[in-house]
């Protein structure tokens, strides 16, 4: 006779339900892939910015144009006074140069490209007039992998996705089953609470593996992101993150009776972390006063640890306190939700 194991059957049921729900599969795997590709393309390394400069048609204009055309980062055109002002106003050009003595720069200093154009043009004209620079300078240009925006972004996207996947994958599923009165029906069987909750956590860990591969694969294969740390350490962090956020998702869902309630609760938990926890830009940008709070958030802990391991090759041990704090973020809500869980 066949043997039946409740934990195996519960986990299988979750896997089947997930894989048969195209929307869930898209939001877990397709969406982060699109986000990574989209943002990666938007913030890829661009060539040096070209600025448009107009020279007003007066005496000496030809000389100025000749001096400026030696540069390939400027596009120089000559127009009448009125037309120059019109083009400046519309943003077609960033700067109008009126030759004479003094040479007059007409521009809006609050426009970054105008300030850039003024500095470039002034530099060229001064040098052409014979200015000598008293300090010798040299440039070392840095665009190597590991310090670009996309390298910053990929570990953050991984962290954010682990959070969203775990919270929705556990919180939504629990409340959906409660709404359907399936939780109550399960409570009427000899099924143990432990096997039910373990099946949710276990299936979440299984869904997490392809998620990790999709995001890391996009970073490494498409954008050449370096992976300087140990893959086992990255996997461990991802597992820990998934489990911790599963605990928070369970807490959000432990008493909610409607999908709207649990959605609201989870958004209250997640949206601040999207902004504060350094997913799309560094969390250091927020005021010092907020830093102790921000650094203690689970997503900040996870993002920082992931970046340290992936980009800097840090060991898991060096992230010890973050690992412990993250585990605490999982265990405490899990314990509370066990206590407060409502089957009816």
């Amino acid at each position, binding site marked *: 006779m066949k043997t039946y*194991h409740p934990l195996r059957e519960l986990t299988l049921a979750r896997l089947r339900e997930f894989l*048969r729900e195209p929307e869930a599969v898209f939001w877990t795997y397709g969406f982060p892939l699109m986000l990574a590709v989209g943002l990666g393309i938007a913030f890829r390394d661009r060539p040096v910015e070209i600025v448009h400069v107009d020279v007003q048609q007066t005496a000496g204009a030809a000389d100025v144009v000749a001096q400026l055309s030696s540069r390939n980062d400027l596009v120089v055109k000559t127009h009448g006074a009125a037309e120059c002002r019109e083009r400046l106003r519309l943003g077609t050009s960033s700067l109008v140069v009126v030759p004479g003595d003094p040479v007059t720069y007409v521009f809006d200093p609050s426009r970054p490209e105008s300030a850039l154009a003024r500095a470039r043009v002034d530099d060229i004209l001064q040098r052409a007039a014979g200015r000598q620079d008293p300090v010798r300078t040299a440039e070392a240009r840095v665009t190597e992998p590991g310090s670009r925006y996309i390298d910053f972004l990929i570990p953050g996207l991984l962290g954010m996705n682990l959070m969203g996947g775990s919270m929705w994958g556990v919180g939504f599923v629990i409340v959906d089953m409660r709404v359907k009165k399936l939780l109550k029906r399960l409570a009427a069987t000899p099924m143990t609470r432990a096997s039910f909750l373990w099946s949710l956590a276990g299936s979440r860990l299984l869904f997490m593996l392809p998620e990790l591969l999709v995001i890391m694969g996009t970073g490494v294969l498409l954008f050449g992101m370096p992976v300087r740390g140990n893959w086992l350490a990255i996997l461990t962090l991802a597992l820990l993150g998934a489990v911790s956020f599963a605990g928070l998702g369970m807490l959000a869902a432990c008493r909610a009776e409607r999908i709207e309630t649990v959605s609201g609760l989870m958004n209250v938990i997640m949206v601040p972390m999207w902004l504060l926890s350094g997913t799309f830009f560094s969390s250091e940008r927020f005021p010092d006063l907020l830093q102790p709070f921000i650094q203690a958030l689970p997503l900040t802990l996870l993002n920082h640890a992931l970046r340290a391991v992936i980009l800097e090759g840090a060991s898991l041990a060096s992230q010890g306190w973050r690992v412990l704090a993250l585990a605490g973020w999982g265990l405490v809500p899990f314990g509370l939700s066990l206590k407060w869980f409502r089957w009816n």
Partner: protein
Amino acid sequence: MADDASVAGSVTTAEAAARAVRCTALTKHYRSKAGPVHAVNGLDLEIRVGECFGLLGPNGAGKTTTIEILEGLLAPTSGDVEVLGRHWGSHDDDLRQRLGISLQETRFQDKLSVLEVLTLFRSFYRRGLEPADVIALVGLTEKASAWVGKLSGGQRQRLAVACALVGDPELLFLDEPTTGLDPQSRRQLWEVIRAFRRRGRTIVLTTHYMDEAERLCDRVAIVDRGQVIALGSPAGLIASMGGAHVIEFACAPGAAPAPADLAALPSVRDVVAGAGDTALTVSEPHVAVPALLGLLQARRAELLRLTTRHVSLEDVFMHLTGRHLRDEDVSPA
């Protein structure tokens, strides 16, 4: 707790073993916005092993609350509950292994197949039936690999009963198993329940269909406002009305004879005069009908309608409460 049955006063072990469920002075009170609700209000029951027992009553009578207390899903406010010789609160797992439960309105996972849902439920029980066998038992073999989301209402209800049967329970609880089903689906479910009963197992079901209770149940408790107002076999309860038939008739307004005159007719046991219709409970319709027609002819009362039928549990309920069993039958007056 396993010894409870043998230490319970004068009750012998044999009597306790023949008893599937007993509850005494059961109450369940809720707080609601409209004030306290006494869903169950001092309810006593004793259900024997091997019988099909029905809780019959209108919506809101406390049937579901009662059955969920028996199932161990709700805690009573007060009162004593004993199921298969045990009390809820200790060794619940052992008890759950021996019970099969079908709740009102459970929705199983839409994207799992019938076989997958039953395999899942089978895995919770130490011993039980093979999922494929239970599927055959409830007549869903053709749908075994269909997703739950694609099933009709009747098929889902049979799946819910299959999930209750898959642990091969000694005691089966069914809460409104056929509500909202078409006649064919109802008959199919009745057959499943009868087959379970023929194997000597016990069934407790709630229903607000009197015909269901009459055809399926060995005994019924009529429940109203959280209390048992009548208890017995369907035939016994019907016999308690004093006659086996009901004659219902209506006359033109103002022409109906007085109740006292009707009660004096031969074979009439009871007269219930309604707003338009008058109902007579009679033991011998072949005697009562000609006498009634003779009376109406003598009074020159115009007869608008005349029907005769067997007494049903509905009449018992009306006799006891003055109200109809089903909400939808209640006139707005």
